[in-house]
């Protein structure tokens, strides 16, 4: 009966148009855009998808979702429950609201140990807010288990996990004994979208709420300090190439590129 734990983070919707993206430099936070709801980090819905693909083959698989974050994270857990996960645990403690990647990883690892036995932990390769890409590997190190990062396919068989890692010029197939930690990348494909019936079933499912004390942790220290958050100026002066016909535009473009010594 394999037990898979998927870590889920909630992020501002990355599809938010850049023009509406603003930060408050005083609090060093991204300002929420009115009318745009936060979403589960895309790579974490892929982690859930990877677990569900295993469950599609190994029917008695149990998938537990795990989040560390404030109240709103519940919505992201519900989304992944509706995708088909079995259980959800929400570590929700104000002492963790300003947690950095390492404090979060410690809380996740402690929760995973409390959820043991487990066979596989799946995380997204990075979260689409900070794009740091450290939490999955750090969790694996804290747990002292093998880690395989940036994968596009995850297969489970008794006592063994086989993945395809994404390399710059191809792929490699790697295997490790269970329990282990795997991070998944976008090459995995599209996550399934919950059906209405699943959303209604997920709405009725309990999300377990844990605090730091439930994890047996007194306090967790951050290892980095965010000194500044700002929006870089990337705009350039754009020259529009006009013309009566597309062919004329094309010719003008080629000539402009030649003048600029770019071709």
């Amino acid at each position, binding site marked *: 009966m394999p037990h898979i734990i998927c870590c889920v983070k909630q992020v501002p919707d990355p599809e938010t148009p*850049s023009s509406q993206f603003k930060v408050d430099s005083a609090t060093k936070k991204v300002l929420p855009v009115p009318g745009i709801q936060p979403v589960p980090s895309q790579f974490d819905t892929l982690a859930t998808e990877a677990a569900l693909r295993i469950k599609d083959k190994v029917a008695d698989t149990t998938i537990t979702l795990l989040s560390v974050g404030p109240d709103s994270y519940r919505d992201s857990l519900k989304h992944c429950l509706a995708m088909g996960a079995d259980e959800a645990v929400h570590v929700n403690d104000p002492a963790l609201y300003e947690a950095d990647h*390492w404090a979060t990883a410690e809380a996740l690892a402690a929760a995973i140990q409390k959820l043991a036995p487990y066979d596989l932990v799946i995380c997204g390769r990075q979260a689409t807010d900070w794009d740091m890409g450290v939490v999955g590997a750090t969790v694996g190190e804290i747990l002292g288990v093998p880690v395989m990062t940036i994968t596009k396919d995850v297969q489970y068989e008794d006592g063994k996990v086989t993945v395809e890692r994404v*390399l710059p010029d191809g792929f490699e197939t790697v295997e490790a004994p269970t329990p282990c930690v795997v991070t998944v990348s*976008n090459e995995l494909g599209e996550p399934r979208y919950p059906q209405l019936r699943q959303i209604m079933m997920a709405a009725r499912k309990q999300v377990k709420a844990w605090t730091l004390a439930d994890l047996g942790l007194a306090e967790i*220290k951050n290892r980095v300090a965010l000194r500044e*958050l700002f929006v870089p100026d990337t705009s350039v002066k754009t*020259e529009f190439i006009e013309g009566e016909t597309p062919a004329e535009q094309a010719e003008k473009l080629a000539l402009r590129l030649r003048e600029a010594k770019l071709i």
Partner: protein
Amino acid sequence: MASGVLVFGEATEDGRLAPVVAELLGAGSRLGTPVVCALLGSGVEPLAQECVARGADKVIVVDDSILSGYQADACLPVAERISRETDAAVVLFGQTIVGRDIAPRLAQRLGTAVAMDCVALEMEGDKLVAERPCYGGNARARYTFNGMPQIATVRVKAQEPLERDDSRQGEIVKQAADVSPDAVRTRVVSRRKEQAEGARLEDASVVVSGGRGLGGPEGFEPLEELAEVLGGAVGASRAVCDLGWYPVGSQVGLTGKMVTPDLYIAVGISGASQHMAGVSQVKNIVAINKDPEAGIIKSARFAVVGDWKEILPPLTEKVRELKAS
């Protein structure tokens, strides 16, 4: 008291020093002294002198077959030992497939943190200030560290290498890996290549990239033709790689490749921030898009609003003519 900089080097598959190593050594020499370079791998010993020529004061070479074909479990104990012995204030990796994997794990073993994918680094006293893009390139964050060593992975081509100086002197020390094969819990079953033909995307001086606006995999044919005429490489947005229209190895963006051509021609690419993160160092972007409001146009030096199907063939033709003249 921790001081100096430790750079973890890496070799390319064909046994050359990865270009990012010279950039890391350049960055390291601007951050502190001494600059120690650790070279872990199989057959890497001949590369040590080049590290010196590129700015290393000392090179620690661990040349051992157990380190061939990077596996974290084999490399980590060696990296941890060298980090502890060197006691550097700053430890640098390239933001490569190896750096992405090993740096977070080394940080945890050393009880410290790592700032990933940094584009700018500076010292304030013994404090490293690490600047990195986040929110898919929409924002930049500057971090300081609460402990030592201060580890950073550095984006490829974000730092200037030093001039190569083959008369530079440096100490070269060999160490044994001293890793038991039993410590390696993962096993590589196989590797396979998947790469588009033509110029390497990372090295190309011209890149022609296609996005969802191409409408299907067949849309890449005219792109390939234009790239060929320009002597460039073909790239693709994440959306089309995920759809299977083009090989994953051609993906440009935050989760794909960072490219730095002199000219980047984006065809049917809307310019999602995660894509723009892959071209953040490109000065000359041409956007060919039917939507004048497409995000990419803001970053483009030249924009052609129209249907790529009608623009590309005459463009390729005119470029061919100009190239021949």
